């Protein structure tokens, strides 16, 4: 029996385009190359490539089911493929190997020490802070730093639309330069590591709303095991930010908490199965302490008290005058502490040359900035 193009796992609009270009059945797509398909259907090359891959997958499945039991054919297409099971068993070994490396460096030594050895694997870490304090910057940095291990990669889920790839490249370039010239992390030869090879191991999802975020998280298990079978050991999953879509769409706290809870359970399962680290960024919200109108406003992490129990580690980023500081407020192993850090063109780093007076610091920051501008010009 011929299978309709409609049974493909692809965007609805793409299927429409396929149909209107005259591709009705799967076997018509078997010998087509992505470039040809893209020309015929006016689909993007990326999408065409995806469709061809799906056709091949489906064909393999069909052959297998025909061999075993033909009547299962229709349901087989919607089952997650079980082929990766043997591979994920062998990844247990890799899991233990990864456990030897205890964390992902933040780029700042002081911050790493406060957390133990960077952001830990196998746990969920939450980074909270006001807009502009550097949550996203730290998130990009962690994705890039997790790729310093040549076999490792990261998944970045962007819910705010704030990710700019040029900035990631800038940080990745700086990481390459720094690591070739000065030190050698974990004895790995970094001399030929390029920013392009780092960026190729970071996978980007853009989610517009809660539904998309939940769907992407639901399919992460499959995605990670697929990437592992291709030799990219995903080590870190970053969601930047978890708060934004939930606060924007779900005003009903009960519904919000229930969905957040299910989502975090799915993520926790991933940390256990693959030993990966999860980093979530969270916004801050104003809370009044005491009664109106005398109560003073202060800032607390968003998403409420129930959520606060879920992440294992909570880091709050704050301004202290002109200085960026990070406070560890929740950790199973380390004490509450405050350290300062800096964000430059090269990414997250220690605060260099601590100057006592705020004034001095401000002016030195200013002059270095104008210098940079002149260089740019």
């Amino acid at each position, binding site marked *: 029996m011929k299978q309709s193009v409609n049974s493909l*796992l692809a965007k609805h609009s793409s299927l429409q385009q396929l149909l209107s270009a005259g591709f009705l059945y799967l076997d018509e797509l078997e010998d087509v190359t992505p470039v040809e398909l893209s020309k015929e259907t006016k689909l993007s090359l990326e999408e065409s490539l995806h469709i061809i891959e799906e056709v091949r997958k489906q064909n393999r499945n069909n052959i297998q089911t025909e061999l075993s039991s033909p009547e299962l054919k229709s349901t087989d297409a919607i089952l997650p493929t079980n082929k990766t099971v043997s591979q994920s068993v062998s990844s247990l070994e890799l899991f233990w190997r990864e456990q030897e490396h205890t964390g992902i460096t933040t780029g700042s030594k002081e911050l790493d020490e406060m957390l133990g050895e960077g952001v830990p694997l196998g746990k969920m870490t939450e980074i909270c802070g006001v*807009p502009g304090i550097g949550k996203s910057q730290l998130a990009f940095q962690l994705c890039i730093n997790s790729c310093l291990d040549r076999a490792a990669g990261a998944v970045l889920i962007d819910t705010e639309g704030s990710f700019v790839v040029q900035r990631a490249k800038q940080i990745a370039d700086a990481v390459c330069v720094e690591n070739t010239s000065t030190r050698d992390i974990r004895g790995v030869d970094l001399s030929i590591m390029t920013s392009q090879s780092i960026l*190729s191991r970071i996978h980007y999802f853009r989610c517009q709303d809660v539904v998309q975020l939940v769907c992407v998280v639901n399919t992460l298990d499959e995605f990670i095991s697929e990437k592992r079978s291709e030799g990219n050991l995903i080590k870190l999953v970053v969601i930047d930010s978890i708060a934004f879509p939930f606060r924007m769409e779900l005003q009903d706290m009960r519904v919000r908490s229930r969905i957040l809870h299910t989502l975090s359970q799915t993520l926790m399962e991933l940390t256990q199965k693959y030993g990966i680290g999860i980093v979530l960024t969270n916004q801050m919200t104003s809370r009044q302490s005491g009664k109106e109108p005398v109560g003073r406003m202060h800032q607390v992490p968003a998403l409420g008290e129930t959520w606060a129990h879920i992440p294992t580690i909570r880091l709050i980023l704050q301004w202290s005058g002109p200085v960026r500081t990070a406070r560890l407020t929740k950790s199973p192993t380390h004490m509450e502490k405050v350290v300062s850090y800096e964000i430059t063109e090269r990414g997250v780093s220690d605060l260099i040359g601590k100057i006592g007076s705020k004034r001095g610091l401000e002016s030195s920051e200013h002059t270095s900035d104008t210098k940079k501008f002149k260089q740019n010009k």
Partner: protein
Amino acid sequence: MSGSDRLTGGEPIKIVADSLIQTEIIQQLNSAGITDIKDIILGSIPDIARRSRLSESELRRIRHSLSKRVSLNCNLGISLSLLTPSSTLQNKLSTGSACLDSVLGGGIIYPGLVEIAGESGAGKTQLCLQLAISTQLPVEMNGVGSDRSIAYICTEDHFPSMRFKELVEARSALLYKHRQVPVDKSLFEEFSDRVYIEKADTSSGLEHYLNRWIPKLAAEKKLGIVIVDSIAGALRDEFMVNTNSLRTETLWRIAKLLRSISFNYNIPVVCTNQVTANIDNSDLSSRGPNKAALGLIWSNVLNERYVLCKREVLKFDIDESECSTTTERLFSVELSSHLPNITYSYVINAKGIKLV
């Protein structure tokens, strides 16, 4: 489940799940009142099982295949290396001022919600007018497109059409080069014909225009940019009268509308905002002497914020032993995920904003 009904958007299961799920199962779900994919994705499985009389494992399977299909719309986990060097994620809109563009890496980034904050007379409207002109340039010139129209929502003042005319004329050399102007029209006529202006002085008025007028413009006139000058002006009544929680709800609703306009139509959305004095240092969200109005929630929804600052500087002239004041204007990037927090001084001349 009733709570999640408040989610907007979503698509019927029937359309998304076409051929993924058997028709009978979809009918069974629909007759139990579960028609939207978000009901399956976000609902609780035991609850849906009870209502639809489907088994939980069956529902988990359905959720999984729906998740897979929906996640195909989220960039497929593409490798970042495939997005460089010419990023397909964002575009740049020129500010119409070459030095400002070079500082911003080509212009303001879109899609995204961009705010220009500053005190009155600092040049916020000026910058908006410049953006309205460059929107109509071709994409190669960092415009949005030469046939694009502009939605300009004024909340405080009238649209300064005289100044707009001056600006167009001051840039005529450049504009003529990149735009074919019909013989029977002047350059100003050509550039101002696509600027559609509405006045909204309440939050409900603003919501109305965003809900009804913008989609119509987008459908009929090829919308290129939405400018709200200023957002604080539209929300002033809200902030005077309403209680805290109502205010918050309105703010989220408007933010959601503005953001979805930007991301759905892939165009820039620019708001201007007022500033208030940063009296108590308890607000750690801002470092400057002034902070933008509307508080923390509003700051959270922005993708970028630029601050324009104008201040009088007292100068003492030794020769004449006299004090004189000059105006110093500063442009700074306060919120951005790709630009450093930098400050430059600028002047405003006939051609617009110029960094010095």
